[in-house]
């Protein structure tokens, strides 16, 4: 019975950790410096 309880606790922690990691995503490419500039006339020449 104790083993079952421990197993369920471990499973619950694993599901919680997995959920948090999924919510956080895989990082992507955060723009650490710089910004967006609208394309204007000279960019189209």
């Amino acid at each position, binding site marked *: 019975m104790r083993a079952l309880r421990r197993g369920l606790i471990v499973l619950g922690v694993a599901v919680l950790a997995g959920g948090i990691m999924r919510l956080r995503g*895989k990082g992507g490419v955060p723009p650490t410096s710089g910004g967006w500039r609208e394309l204007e006339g000279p960019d189209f020449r």
Partner: protein
Amino acid sequence: MTTVMLVGTGAVGARAARQLTDTAGIERVLIVERRKSHADVVAAAMGARAEVLEWTADSPVPDGVAAVACALPAGAEQPIASRAVEAGVPFASSGDDEHDLMGLRSLTEPARRAGITVLAGCGLAPGLSDVLARHAADAFDEVDEIGVARAGTAGDACIATAGRALRGGCAELRDGVYDESRRRGGHELVWFPEPIGPRECERVATGVQLLSGAVPDADRITVRLARDDTGARKRWLGRRDPEGSWGAVRVEVWGRRGAAREPIVYGAIERTAIAAGTVLAVTTAALAGALPGLLAPSAGVFGLGGVAQPRAFLEELSRRGVKAAIFEGVPVA
């Protein structure tokens, strides 16, 4: 007199109608819509250049039509494209359903024989994203990798299509080989221009092959879609805003200039329906000959990136309020 036929006046089609009637070289826009009363309302709002046409895909394309634009929900494009090919009239569609895109590509041989251009995926992504990718690729000696991501949907039909894309299998071009997979994986936080900002996106198959045709030297191509644009909550929220939801596209292209490997990142942000409708209208007007110099069309079926002259096309979109941007900085952590 240059006449174009627009089939469908939903969220994207109505915006395309406005852009077409505002184009100097277009004298007449024939509006085809299953819902007669809706077609009357749209035509009345567009003024004297627009008129309602009762037409179905069982009938031939009327004489005198210079180009056909299609903004219909998934599953309805191919019969209309076939009628256009039979009539020898160029065709453009804003649909982004991968099965529809495949269906249009199956018309390649008939379109070549007829000597006309069929353009698939002329919306935000695929569409504007392909033009931005081609524009970035032109700046490199050699292109390695293209990553496209889109957030935003234009209307209920678009939300449904995006939902199907996210539920179905995904695909990517890897080492130059088209690789389909039932397992999705690969979700990633993508940084769109503000105010959209970071959104979690998942890989989809939508438009990978079209983009591969536009940039054939790219070894790797991925397309991602923001998942939180497809739920019932989104449908409800979307109805609250008559202008539709905001959308954004981010196109990251890696390539080599000399010895250096570097990225170019382009983005755009606009109401999704307005962006898609404007891209469709500009494409159709260019196919009809009303906007010369924007496309270099040849016979066959292509994505927009395969025929657009990126600088001229982006400048025309910018003139109409759909403005692209470049990320200047260091786009890596």
